[in-house]
């Protein structure tokens, strides 16, 4: 039998990789390329398309409605990513030196919103925000009935309301990540800092922040991606309304294909979303984790 010493190039490797690669190439890479191709056309999905070149992309950055959609995505980035990460980071840092008991229980509960299907989250929160739902009910009970309104149908409040759902979903993720990270920071570092006379602030910057760099990068990456990929939530709570107040790029991909018949534009928006995710991921990892 031919016994190859380990470490030498093995041709059989290709065979192992082949099945995965075939499926991957056919059902992910190919559609991606096809989408990029379609984005170069004006096409309604029914009749023959016409060449558009970069017109769809320039429309995506110049059309007021689409710019609005990307603007809304930025707002949601704040709610989905910045807010949860900042809150979780600050709070976990405050807990940095304790080793609480029952951590498993807390972790399980905190992480729960991440596991529930987004569709179910949307259906549930759509009731919570409704005219006679719990939020308005609580406001009325507290004598603040004047503040009660149809949150998801209000031009000013719809986007923040949706954003807060995102905050609810993501904050558990951030907390669990940082809790795990903080457990790994050796206590000795804190003791040493304490001995050196460092106050809470110095401790934070000298011990906690560096120790949680990796977790911060992961949290920001995951939550940023979630912010840009929130089709499910928008579709089921507001459908982009009222007016265009909650239109986001992820929703426009669907909307422009099935409602307005602008398939090329929809594909262009999809590609833009992918590029943005890629760019954000690269930047976050470079900045937060730092190059060794």
């Amino acid at each position: 039998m031919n016994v190859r010493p380990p470490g030498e190039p093995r041709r059989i490797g290709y065979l192992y990789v082949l099945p995965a690669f075939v499926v991957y190439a056919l059902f992910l890479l190919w559609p991606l390329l096809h989408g990029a191709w379609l984005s170069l056309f004006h096409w309604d999905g029914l009749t023959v398309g016409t060449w558009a070149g970069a017109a769809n992309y320039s429309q995506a950055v110049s059309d007021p409605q689409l710019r609005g959609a990307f603007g809304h995505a930025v707002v949601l980035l704040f709610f989905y990513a910045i807010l949860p990460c900042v809150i979780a980071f600050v709070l976990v840092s405050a807990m940095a030196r304790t080793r609480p008991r029952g951590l498993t229980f807390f972790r399980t509960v905190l992480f729960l919103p991440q596991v529930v299907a987004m569709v179910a989250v949307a259906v549930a929160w759509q009731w919570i925000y409704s005219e006679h739902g719990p939020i308005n009910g609580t406001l009325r009970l507290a004598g603040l009935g004047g503040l009660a309104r149809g949150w998801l149908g209000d031009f000013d409040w719809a986007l923040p309301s949706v954003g807060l759902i995102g905050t609810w979903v993501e904050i558990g993720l951030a907390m669990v990540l940082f809790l795990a990270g903080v457990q790994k920071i050796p206590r000795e570092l804190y003791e040493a800092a304490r001995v050196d006379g460092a106050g809470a602030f110095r401790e934070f910057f000298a011990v906690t922040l560096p120790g949680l760099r990796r977790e911060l990068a992961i949290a920001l990456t995951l939550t940023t991606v979630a912010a840009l990929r929130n089709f499910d939530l928008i579709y089921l709570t507001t459908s982009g309304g009222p007016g265009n107040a909650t239109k986001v790029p992820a929703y426009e991909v669907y909307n422009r294909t099935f409602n307005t018949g602008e398939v090329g534009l929809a594909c262009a928006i999809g590609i833009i979303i992918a590029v943005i995710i890629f760019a954000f991921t690269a930047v976050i990892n470079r900045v937060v984790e730092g190059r060794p």
Partner: protein
Amino acid sequence: MRKPIVVLAAALLAVSACTPGSNTPKPTQKPPSAINTDIAKAGPVTLTVWDQEVLPGQNEQMQKLNAAFQAKYPNVKIKRVSRSFSDLEKTLRLALSGNTPPDVVEANQGYGIMAALVKAGALVSLDPYDKVYGFRKRFPAGVSQLNSVTPDGKTIGSGSLFGVSMTGEAVGIYYNTDKLAKLGIQPPTSWGQFEQDLALAKSKGETPIYFANLEKFPAIHEFGVLLGQTADKTALRRLVFGQGGAWTDPPVVQAAQKLADYAKNGYFSKSANAGKYNDSPTAFAKGDGVFLIGGPWFAADLQKKMGSKVRFMLPPPASAGAQQPATLGGPGLPLAITSKSKHPDVAAAYLSFMSTPQAMDVVTQTGGLPATKPATAKPTNPVGLDVFDAYRVASDKDILVPYLDYATTTFLDTLGSALQEIIAGRKTPQEGMRDAQKDYGDFLAKK
């Protein structure tokens, strides 16, 4: 180093580097002599029908009619897929160019759906079948007009017949008789009186008009009724069909101003833009609202929930006794045959079955408003009778204006959004109508 990805990509791109949509063949039409009307001889057939008759009365209507058709032709099985109007709108366009589209669909008239489908060759012209079944003879000319599109898909309101409607629609005002009695008023006989009633209701803490507008299209009904007061019906029809006029014309802006005023005066439900439309009968029955602007689709549900406490009227004229003003309406969503259907003849027989006087009986009995005269049935409950008679008056006096969202492919969204902004006080009527006109102008220029 070999880059398998690049090679693969290049190969595949080369293979399909064709313009998208260039490989959807346009189907051919069958000449009349080849049409088979003996459905029983067609063998076992499954007819897939997509409709949006989800409200309880409408649902019952479809179930009864489908059952009757299958009883008459036991070799035909009807596979019914029903979903809400919004959901149907979203999935219909592209579904028809797929590989397994339904045979029969309820296709909304106007540029958004019907004309777009005709342009893509996705619907079968009913003209050949008209020669056999006499569809046009069954309806008033205006009804067939609205279900027609020129074969190139560029103009609505004329051309070949593409749809057959089961129901008719006229938008009017439902009112809660108990609440009117409590306020000490009679149903208004003039629009001025109506506005006084609204103010009175508001002062007594009632919601004058129940209005749920999350889906955007309900505002079009409110707006349409106001347009009937301020604008001339011929001008409105020309506007919708793209034959002349603009949404920034003074009578149109006037109606938008009224809409804004009503919202400001609190005549609509609070948080109107957040309410769900299909919830209206339930809410109205629970006492939310003295008036409810809507069409016959609410009647069955309202009647079941409110009995004789609810009645219906057409929008009153400017002054009592004057000419009946225009309002929105026309034939209900028509049934159409898809061009990829493998059983167009059976589908045509289905369309014919669904528009006979006997079918109209079923529509009436389930609380719907029939498109043509029923054989024997007449509504037995007060509100149903109101709606029935109102439609007769509207057809006779020819006051129906097509739904405004027919005007462009995206008008439901653009006009609907503009109206939402006006109602919320975020845009002036002038600004909102300018937005609508922009979409309209762009569309007409591209046509």
